[in-house]
């Protein structure tokens, strides 16, 4: 199939690239743009390891065509990957907290969680435990049993508040 020239806006920068219409956003991010933080963990849109923000909304990049995010007569959406979460070259509060509290073990699902938690806290800076649990329920983790993630998220919220 013939490739098409498209423009994607990822982590605040514009990228022009030639892709086949059938290419998934995840594959384009990983293979064309070298944003390998987003992971492929399943093939049936169930695990959440590939989660990115599309205009701030958590979205599975394995279930999204890159073409659907391309600019045409209108600007395409802003895509934020885990590589766009860090805070001016240092760990964002949630990244630091996940490290400190054991929220990440093998780390393979972690990029998806980082993106999901960022979206949660952007929308709701003080979520209840129930809201956190609910928000995380679309990302699977096989190491932690999620318990330490809740501690990490609480710590990150406290750190953010202390900084404010």
């Amino acid at each position, binding site marked *: 199939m013939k490739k098409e020239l498209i423009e994607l806006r990822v982590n605040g920068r514009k990228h022009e690239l030639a892709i086949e219409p059938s290419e998934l956003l995840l594959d384009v991010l990983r293979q064309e743009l070298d944003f390998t933080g987003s992971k492929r963990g399943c093939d049936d849109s169930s695990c959440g390891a590939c989660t990115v923000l599309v205009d701030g909304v958590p979205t599975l990049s394995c279930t999204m065509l890159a073409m659907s995010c391309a600019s045409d007569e209108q600007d395409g959406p802003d895509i934020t990957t885990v590589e766009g979460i860090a805070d001016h070259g240092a760990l964002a509060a949630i990244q630091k907290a996940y490290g400190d509290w054991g929220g990440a073990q093998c780390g393979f699902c972690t990029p998806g969680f980082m993106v999901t938690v960022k979206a949660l806290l952007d929308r709701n800076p003080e979520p209840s435990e129930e809201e956190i649990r609910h928000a995380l329920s679309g990302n699977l983790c096989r190491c932690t*049993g999620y318990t330490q993630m809740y501690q990490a998220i609480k710590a990150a919220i406290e750190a953010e508040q202390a900084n404010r």
Partner: protein
Amino acid sequence: MSEFSVIGKRVALVDSAGKTTGQGKYTDDLSVPGMLTGKILHSPYPHARIKKIDTSKAEAVDGVVCVVTGPDAPNKYGILPVGHDETALAVEKVRYVGDNVACVVAESESIAERALELIEVEYEQLPAWFDPEDSMKAEKDWIHPQRPNNIEKDYHHVFGDPGKGFAEADVVMEHRYIAGEVTHAAMEPHCTLASFEIDSQTGQPGRLTVWSSTQVPYYLQHKLSIVLELPMQQIRVIKPLVGGGFGGKSEVIPLEIIAAVAARKAKAPVKITYTREEVFWAHRGRPRTIIDMKIGAKKDGHLTAVAAKVIQDGGAYCSYGVVTILYSGALLGALYDIPNIKYDGYRVLTNKPACGAMRGHGTVNVRFAFESQLDEIAAKLDIDPAEIRRINLLKPPCITVNNLRVQSYGLPECIDKVISRSGWHERRSKLPPARGMGMACSHYVSGAANSIIRSDMPHSTVNIKIDRDGGVVVYTGASDIGQGSDTMVAQIVAEVLGIGLGRIRVIAADTDLTPIDIGSYSSRVTFMNGNASLRAGQDVRKKIAAAAAVKMNCAPEDVMMRDDRVWKRGTAEPATNGAHAEQMLEKIDAPRGSVREVSGRVEGQTLRGSLQQKRKDEGPKDSMSFEEAVVSAIDFTGALTGTGSYAPPKDARGGAFKGAGVGPSPAYSYSAQVAEVTVDEETGEVKVHKVWAAHDCGRALNPVSVEGQVIGSVWMGLGQAMQEEMVWKDGLLMNPGMLEYKSPSATESPEVECIIVESVDPEGPFGAKEASEGSLAATIPAIANAIYDAVGVRLREAPFTPERVLAAIKAKHSEKKALDITRGDDPVTPTTFREHGGSLWFKGKGPQRHADDPSRRA
């Protein structure tokens, strides 16, 4: 000030920032110039002879470089020396749906996938075996001709006098328990990248480098050497970050060998990444297991004898099977004081993907049976479930009846703590209807005392290099798969050398750079690699101390090292690293271009001259920085290196009988758990509210990590208890994906409270033992016992899906108009090992295939 400065502190994993930022590289994130993609063709039949493979059409596709088939690498391999029954690609037969037939190497994934469809394979179908109890009776059409009756291995062990023990018992219980098949489902699908480099001398392809998602780089190097007929020194295995293992990457997985064979044939680097479905086919998970358990006890609760017959549905290859079936028997011992044990274990071959090692290897399903039955005995004797466990405690140090050496034994404290934290005595009797609490215990080895390949080779070796900059590089073969072994190694070395973690760089799991470590499995890394790290640290510390002693005019024994400072015993301890760090910050903030003062942190060649100048000025002193001590040691001895290794002691290696090699460990971890559940009596749905888990890990080197490992184990046990199972129909896996294989989501995952118990093992590094596996096995029976406490029904088949629970409840109430939920299959007292797995999806043998079924057409 505490005893330790780094050990026992809650520290972030040394590689955590790479994980939270997405910068850390896993194998699939790597690429090398000219890299090709490999895609594997899998068998559509469970058991068939390959009559012909025609790859010509696939090879003709534009962009296809080559197609690899079995004859390209026919040498057999397997993780166990007794189980070399696999080939890279099928040579003569395929043995399960998903078995590896051919591999296309192409310029892109899409081209490879297209070419796969053009490979023509002619099969002759053979009768296939799906039910292990049927398979054991097979007279012909054996899966491997060298394994009569499809029995991979059977063991029959008798310790003490079980006949006498049962005769003395006041109560004897006997039931069949069945545990369904589960798999690791690590989040990272397996991936391997293989690349040959051209030898400068010969001009021909020479050394092979393999990056792979593996728990066992050294074994991979070994097996690659066998299959490729290449000396081990010509093979370099590098383990990048690994996205979880749980045993699923603890042996050589087909794609690892296939990628290397493909790279050789394609004369170019080849990467293969499994789809999630392929991960399920690669499997090596926990086999479905039937356990016929029999326990005898006196009226006062003392156990008199245990007999267990265990059948494991092992799948089509040996894998770790011989070890699994041995662990199932051996780990009947070393938890409680059991005077008489009889064990009959059968590892059976069937035409399904091979089962192997999974977290809690071999012990989990048998522990489910044992702890459930112990609960039944307690109920019958009217003894509190916690009390009956206390009554049967071991009295260490001791050697169990099956020759396991037990030294540190935190189980009593685990039971005490979990009882008090959960409010067992106060709350249990006052719970609302249909709510209950159950308890169970478990244990696990801290590494096997005997390695797979029997030899006197150390199981772990660690090297340390320190240069004049004061940076400490630790070379360890330990494979960090997310459990935090890099951090563990860094902490131990930091503690021994009295330095901060920031000074240490861990180089791990690269066979060119790091000394041999046999891998991350059987929970051996903290104990064994930790001990090697400790010894390597002590080795290099001795050299530093000797040099520092000269400078400080004291005996080497009087040299103290802590917080990046070195001082003479008895003198005031110099400022700690807090103050030191402040100084450093001031210097960093100094304006650019200003002259930096002499400091250990200053880089480069100025250091030497300045320090010499400083030394001359100062004369003998009472303290110095770590850098100064290092520099003086290097001036003194030349390059500063240290090495340490670990081999389990002889007296921990077990008995002399056949099969005695599996089970012995230098130390055992212990766990006691309480689970609290509510059962919906109308639907059979079970909600697990909370699990309290007390785990004796010897010493918690990093409590955050210990808690993470224990909680993760409990959670994985919960998955097996409640919802995970691999469902089979005629050798087809019905749920080969994360959507239908029900790994728990955050919603139904309960709170797990981890209580760390520290028994301080005499041989563990700083007293540490394992933390990652031992807790899993107790969770399943704790939940089963809690369900019993809640509604009075005994679940003897896992997972406890709502249909099983409801069927049991209806059976208990002997409802006349009860719907037959399971159409004849009784989940409460299962008698047969259904061909389609433990699952109730299909009844009996399930629907027959239609005569016109295309898969049956010739």
